């Protein structure tokens, strides 16, 4: 792979996406062994730089890094010198001086990973920036879709929830629209972003948007980003846009339900759906490890930019 950074899905080619998924398949096998660690990236150092609270993504990256035999450093904001007033530029220059090979970064502002990539001699992986992108999540979702449906093409995929604030939704839209799928978005009208240039159908009636779907992708209501009132109450949200058994029955019989986690049971998804055989939510977690291993493995050979 010619790429050195993974900043977003938007600038990936179909071939590159397929290569990530194909390689993740190999790593998924590694994760089933007794000894789950391989020496592939021995001697490489990675720093996980999380400017936003994260447990799942950070843990997933950290396990993936350790499985590849990397040396792992964690840098979270409350414990760092950022609270002492250091600028982002000085922080990353300091990290560069440590001689790290990879930076995994999450930040509440969109575009920060791009800024870091332009200012450091290391591979940068975007672990979520503001409301822009979350590329490894979209890759693991694509891997999970391919495993369950046998293909990444010709599917009807319905994404439900807070599309506006969701970098997961955006990365997924970018990815899935590269593979000839029908993409539907269901959200309260206040939570639909301005998506120009993408072939998506927008619904505010959930029953209509779910009819005949192959994939139902639920999003977490990001209570921490609801600064102004986008919808009246959580109870009302579930009534109109929550996924329960009756609504899921409108989708295809073999439709799968996905969720990037953490779930708010009773807010966007009912417990019986979350725990149903159609739910692949826990598979997504396992696939996340494999995809993140594949991303770091493939980027380690990168030469461009």
């Amino acid at each position: 792979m010619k790429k050195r950074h993974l900043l977003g899905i938007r600038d990936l080619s179909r071939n590159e996406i397929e290569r990530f998924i194909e390689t993740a398949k190999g790593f998924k096998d590694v994760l089933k062994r007794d000894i789950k660690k391989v020496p592939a990236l021995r001697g490489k150092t990675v720093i996980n730089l999380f400017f936003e609270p994260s447990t799942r993504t950070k843990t997933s990256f950290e396990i993936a890094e350790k499985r590849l035999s990397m040396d792992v450093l964690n840098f979270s904001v409350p414990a760092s010198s950022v609270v002492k007033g250091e600028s982002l530029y000085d922080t990353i220059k300091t990290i560069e001086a440590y001689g790290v090979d990879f930076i995994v970064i999450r930040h509440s502002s969109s575009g920060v990973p791009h800024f870091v990539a332009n200012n450091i001699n290391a591979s940068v992986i975007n672990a979520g920036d503001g409301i822009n992108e979350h590329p490894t999540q979209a890759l693991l979702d694509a891997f999970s879709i391919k495993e369950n449906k046998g293909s990444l093409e010709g599917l009807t995929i319905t994404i439900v929830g807070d599309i506006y604030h969701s970098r997961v939704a955006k990365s997924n839209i970018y990815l899935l629209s590269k593979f000839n799928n029908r993409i539907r978005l269901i959200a309260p009208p206040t939570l639909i972003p301005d998506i120009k240039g993408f072939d998506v159908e927008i619904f505010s009636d959930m029953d209509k948007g779910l009819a005949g779907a192959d994939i139902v992708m639920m999003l977490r209501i990001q209570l921490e980003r609801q600064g102004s009132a986008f919808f009246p109450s959580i109870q009302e949200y579930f009534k109109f846009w929550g996924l329960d058994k009756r609504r899921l029955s409108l989708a295809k019989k073999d439709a799968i339900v996905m969720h990037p986690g953490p779930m708010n049971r009773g807010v966007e998804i009912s417990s019986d759906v979350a725990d149903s055989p159609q739910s692949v939510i826990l598979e997504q977690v396992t696939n996340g490890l494999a995809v993140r291993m594949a991303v770091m493995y493939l980027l380690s050979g990168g030469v461009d930019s």
Partner: protein
Amino acid sequence: MMRKKTRTKSTKELLGSKDIKRIISRIAHEITEKNKGVENLCLIGIQRGGVHLARRLALEIKTIEQVDIPVGSLDISLYRDDITIRKEQPVVRKTELPLDITDKKIVLVDDVLFTGRSIRAAMDALMDFGRPAQIQLAVLIDRGHRELPIRADYVGKNIPTSQKENIEVELIEEATPDRVVLYKE
């Protein structure tokens, strides 16, 4: 084996399908002779070139001993020593071991033995799956130029080469006639 796709100027067929058939038959006999039968034996082909050869050896051994011996495949890409200096990472392929390899006699099978680095990686990979009683090595071609102290227990044919030459083993399982070809730059 690192297979660099270089522009080739000339090619020469070194072995044809009859030669390869005879060699596989001979190595099968050597394996059963050296191990006094096939008890505890397992053949493991290194991805990709060794996998088909391992299967053929097992078939040949069956005609001699009337026993099906277990055959596996081993991907070594995550154990290579050049992983962080290559421009393009190798494709990660399937590793399928048919049984717990601990206390088994393992015959690693590869198509071409060259620097020995693939074999080193293969031994490291195997050790992560268990502790074999023994590891032996069978190759179709030994082309010399070893960079590590490794030698094969069973060799189909020694073919001295120069560094600029490349040897390709082409097998019917890959939709080409069985043959071994020398490519010169």
